[in-house]
């Protein structure tokens, strides 16, 4: 692992190092203060805060490191979520404590890959841990200068001439690319390895304004290639591609989407052809590995689901629903009785409530009784007031459970007579308030237009469905995805 690329990160941060003290910084660990090798004078200065007050020892410790670069703490270049992940990673805790500049370089030498975050839970690579460490210990300027001028450690553009391969750790597996590719990415993009890089003005504008010299490729210097020849070659290639494109529009789209204009770029392309081949190869093998793992995953899922489902319970519920109708009538009678009693007690408010939700209450009580016998009804009568809240909660839970059941019904196509199915839909329609309505609009539009006031439906009323789909399709086209199927 070349430690040069580490250098370039930290060079960016140290460019305009103005050694300000940052009072608010409290994000640094206490442990890495141990390897503090700042000169004494700086510490002396910090003993007294900006307002002249004496500082507590802990504050002094945190201030020792508190240098800002470009007006902010360099560790904040790493996003907070990634930073927290790094700092809770075992490698950080075990291997990054008590590192100083030289031991950090040793650690970096022993890395076997680099990258941002990887895996399903996006754990940070060791490379990223070391990088954050370097941002924390903030090597002093002369060390940085030493690194940069050292022949062994190169800084950014010289790395264009470094074609050693490096391993980029991806979510799954690795990718092989060469140093110059990575440096190109660092120089031109503003986001790499899960880190938002500070903006770097493009070379062309620096050449125009800051009097930077034009970069000449090493290949030109070595007289391996002639720039004029190369430009002609590239133009020819482009022409050829265009011709091909006219013949068959589909095939060559990817290549022409980013036409190579600058000779420099094409140079690097030519040299990188080799590594591209490797990339392809490794990717295919990786894919195969993935497929294996996926099938295993799916198997596990299925087992899990089978265990989960209690068929008997479902059948019971069906029978309940048939019985439910008969019972509703009974309940109405009984309920009238209860109304009288209520009025005696003068609870008008409660009655209103029950009127509104009578349907739901019936069903609840029905189901409750089936399960718990008569105890439940007695309970109801005794302290109905308190019970109601809880009842509502339970009802919501049950609706959720039903929701899931409904989906499973779809997927597993249990055989059921159409009449019953319709009943089921009716029942669901009443209970489910959150469920997507469009599903039912297909089969039975009268059902969905009934009393159920779903919040979801309200949302879609403002924006018509078709309009929404059109918007989504426009977005998908922009992202390069196929349009939605009806």
């Amino acid at each position, binding site marked *: 692992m070349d430690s040069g690329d580490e250098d370039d990160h930290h060079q960016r941060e140290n460019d305009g190092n103005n050694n300000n003290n940052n009072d608010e910084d409290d994000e640094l660990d206490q442990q890495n203060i141990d390897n503090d090798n700042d000169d004494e004078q700086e510490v002396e200065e910090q003993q007294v805060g900006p307002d002249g007050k004496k500082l507590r020892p802990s504050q002094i410790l945190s201030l020792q490191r508190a240098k800002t670069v470009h007006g902010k703490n360099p560790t904040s270049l790493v996003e907070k979520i990634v930073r927290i992940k790094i700092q809770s990673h075992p490698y950080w805790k075990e291997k990054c404590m008590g590192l100083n500049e030289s031991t950090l370089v040793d650690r970096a030498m022993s890395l076997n890959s680099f990258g941002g975050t990887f895996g399903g839970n996006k754990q940070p690579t060791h490379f990223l841990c070391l990088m954050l460490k370097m941002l924390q210990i903030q090597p002093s300027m002369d060390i940085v200068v030493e690194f940069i001028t050292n022949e062994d450690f190169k800084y950014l553009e010289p790395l264009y001439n470094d074609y050693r391969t490096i391993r980029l750790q991806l979510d799954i597996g690795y990718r092989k690319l060469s140093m110059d590719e990575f440096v190109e990415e660092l120089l031109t993009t503003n*986001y790499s390895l899960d880190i938002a890089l500070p903006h770097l003005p493009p070379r062309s504008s620096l050449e125009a304004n800051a009097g930077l010299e034009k970069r000449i490729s090493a290949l030109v210097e070595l007289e391996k290639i002639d720039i004029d020849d190369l430009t002609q070659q590239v133009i020819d290639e482009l022409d050829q591609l265009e011709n091909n494109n006219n013949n068959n529009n589909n095939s060559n789209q990817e290549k022409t989407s980013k036409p190579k204009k600058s000779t420099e770029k094409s140079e690097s392309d030519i040299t990188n052809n080799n590594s591209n081949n490797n990339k392809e190869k490794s990717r295919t093998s990786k894919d195969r590995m993935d497929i294996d793992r996926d099938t295993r995953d799916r198997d596990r899922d299925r087992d899990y689901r089978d265990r989960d489902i209690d068929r008997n319970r479902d059948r019971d519920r069906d029978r309940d629903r048939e019985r439910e109708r008969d019972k509703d009538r009974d309940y109405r009678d009984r309920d009238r009785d209860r109304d009288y009693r209520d009025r005696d007690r003068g609870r008008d408010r409660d009655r209103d409530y029950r009127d509104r939700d009578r349907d739901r209450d019936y069903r609840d009580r029905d189901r409750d009784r089936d399960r718990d016998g008569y105890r439940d009804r007695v309970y109801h009568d005794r302290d109905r007031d308190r019970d109601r809240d809880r009842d509502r909660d339970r009802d919501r839970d049950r609706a959720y459970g039903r929701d899931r059941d409904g989906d499973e019904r779809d997927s597993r196509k249990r055989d059921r007579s159409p009449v019953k199915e319709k009943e089921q839909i009716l029942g669901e329609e009443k209970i489910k308030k959150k469920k997507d309505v*469009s*599903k039912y609009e297909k089969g039975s539009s009268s059902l969905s237009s009934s009393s159920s006031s779903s919040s979801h439906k309200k949302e879609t009323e403002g924006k018509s469905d078709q309009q929404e789909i059109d918007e*989504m399709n426009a977005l998908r086209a922009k992202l390069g*995805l196929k349009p939605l199927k009806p």
Partner: protein
Amino acid sequence: MIEVVCNDRLGQKVRVKVNPDDTIGDLKKVIAAQIGIRPDKIRLQKWYNVYKDHITLEDYEIHDGDGLELYYN
């Protein structure tokens, strides 16, 4: 076309229409465009099952109206 609901329980809840044969990566792109965040900073999961980018919704048996948990990283 199905519709899935993605909820990080911090105030962001998006409903997106997708095809069942879209991959999770595609879904992430659409979500990212809607809430203004990079697709690779999104993690979709259900309980401890982190959904992988290259697998389709069909294969994960994600149906119309299903909810996914949305996390950031």
